[in-house]
């Protein structure tokens, strides 16, 4: 059995979803998008999958197109929510999990998708946050991810701009702010997996086997905290890999990675039946 890093990454994201959860991804997030379909076809058959940008409920897309607002993504759905129907539910706390990424992510899980550098003359004007700013406050759990940990510029001590809220911002904690959602539960990167412990601060809990702790440390712009139970990211199953490939025949999810990451391939012995 062979697989590459992007496939493993998607499977790792999928495993942050529990069965019977109501789950949403934002647009322009093919890794999360594919992960949701993988989860629904494996360990979470009763999840309610809300396709980002289409707001289609439990669709069965024949392929994942490279744009999030395409009819392929509502294929087979009995129902598509209206815009307000989804966002109202998210604000009311009826959405259990959302996937969020960021050009910058701080130790508390605040994310910046607005601008690098000062806002009046940014060094890089990023695309913007879509719906995350409001609903990161109220959705029950957030799974954060980035495919650019290795750049050293993504996990930072302080975001230049906070677009979406993590566990605490300079204005206070979620409790201080009156926010009903639980904040980030996991951060998955191309180097490993973080949780947020009891105190709402990123802590490395798993690492990919081809990555060293030193590499992670060098790539992380804030002080790296490591779980005493640090382990290796569990391998994908054959079923999961098949489903990743079936869901995303165009491998759109791979477009999130620096091309060098695609060369990271892995092999395991087939289990003897």
């Amino acid at each position, binding site marked *: 059995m062979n697989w590459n890093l992007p496939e493993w990454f998607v499977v790792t994201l999928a495993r942050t979803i529990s069965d019977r959860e109501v789950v949403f991804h934002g647009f322009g997030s093919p890794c999360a998008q594919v992960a949701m379909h993988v989860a629904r076809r494996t360990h979470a058959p009763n999840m309610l999958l809300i396709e980002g940008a289409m707001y289609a409920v439990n669709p069965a897309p024949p392929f994942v197109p490279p744009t999030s607002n395409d009819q*392929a993504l509502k294929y087979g759905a009995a129902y598509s929510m*209206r815009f307000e129907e989804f966002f109202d539910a998210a604000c009311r706390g009826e959405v259990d999990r959302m996937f969020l990424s960021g050009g910058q992510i701080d130790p508390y899980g605040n994310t910046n998708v607005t601008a690098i550098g000062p806002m009046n003359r940014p060094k890089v004007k990023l695309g913007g946050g879509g719906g995350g700013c409001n609903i990161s406050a109220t959705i029950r759990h957030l799974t954060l991810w980035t495919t650019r940990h290795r750049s050293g510029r993504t996990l930072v001590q302080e975001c230049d701009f906070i677009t979406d809220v993590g566990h605490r911002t300079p204005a206070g904690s979620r409790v201080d702010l009156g926010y009903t959602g639980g904040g980030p539960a996991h951060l998955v990167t191309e180097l490993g997996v973080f949780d947020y412990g009891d105190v709402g601060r990123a802590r490395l809990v798993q690492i990919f086997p081809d990555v060293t702790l030193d590499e992670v440390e060098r790539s992380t712009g804030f002080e790296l905290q490591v779980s005493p139970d640090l382990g290796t990211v569990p391998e994908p199953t054959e079923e999961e890999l098949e489903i990743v490939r079936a869901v995303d025949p165009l491998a759109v999810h791979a477009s999130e990675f620096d091309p060098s990451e695609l060369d990271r391939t892995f092999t395991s012995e087939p289990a003897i039946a």
Partner: protein
Amino acid sequence: MFVDHDKVGDLPSAAARVSDGDMVALGGGLSARLPMALVRELVRLGRQDLHLVGSAHGMDVDLLVAAGAVAVCEESYVGFEQDLGLAPSYRRAAEAGQLEIRETCCVTILTQLRAAQMGLPFLPVRGVKGTDIRRMHPDYAEIVCPFTGETLVAVPPLEPDVALIHAPMGDRVGNLHLEQPYVLDEHFARAARQVVATVDRLATTEEVVATGVTIPGHRVSVVVEVPFGAHPTSCYPGYAYDRQHLAAYVAAAGQAQTAQDYLAEWVTRPGGEDAYRAALDQDRLDRLMSWSDTIEEWKELFV
């Protein structure tokens, strides 16, 4: 409301309902159902100082920025997703400080549109507090819930002067059929002072009613038939998006000079929108329209 029984107009006079400095809502989202023919016509008319509002957009905003038509951009996202990346002209203008970015968020803009459509002077939102989106917006305020004591963010109504909406089909009264997702189009139609609409095809009222009226004619001030009026973005069930054209645009927009070359070649050349359409590769258009023939052919459009 707009009670006339026949609202069919032509593209130049429809686009001319947008004045310099207007707040303009853009229908559709990302690379789907963007009102591109109207956007191109605004460029041809030389409109400027526009205040754009919308949720997540792409080439519509970028093209207007490239043409120097935009003063303020109040969107939740502008770009081309993972696929084609950041919006080049938008990014360049923002980084040069030539564009006022009032970045917003889906729920906030929805709530502001709801305030306008409900005739209310404010509505509250949860969220936003603690973010830099809040700091960027002196136009928001705080409000304390009289029942719970919770402090929420109050946002004012957003009443666009004009909403530009493209639909696959509509009738002469302005009844429009859209496919889901409607994004904010229904809310724009209810919150804006007027809706300027283009349709790929004018149909009888009976046909539009049978397919489903999404936006009623009484909210629409003018409707223009413009085949491929959303090109190069998609307008289902008519056509998928033209990824090749979009990629070529994004490449051209990467430099200020080549962005101007794109505008000259595709937008401001003599002949207006007819010339734009005539310049497109007909075989390519046929393929975009035949997306529903087989899953395989559909998929191939995205390669």
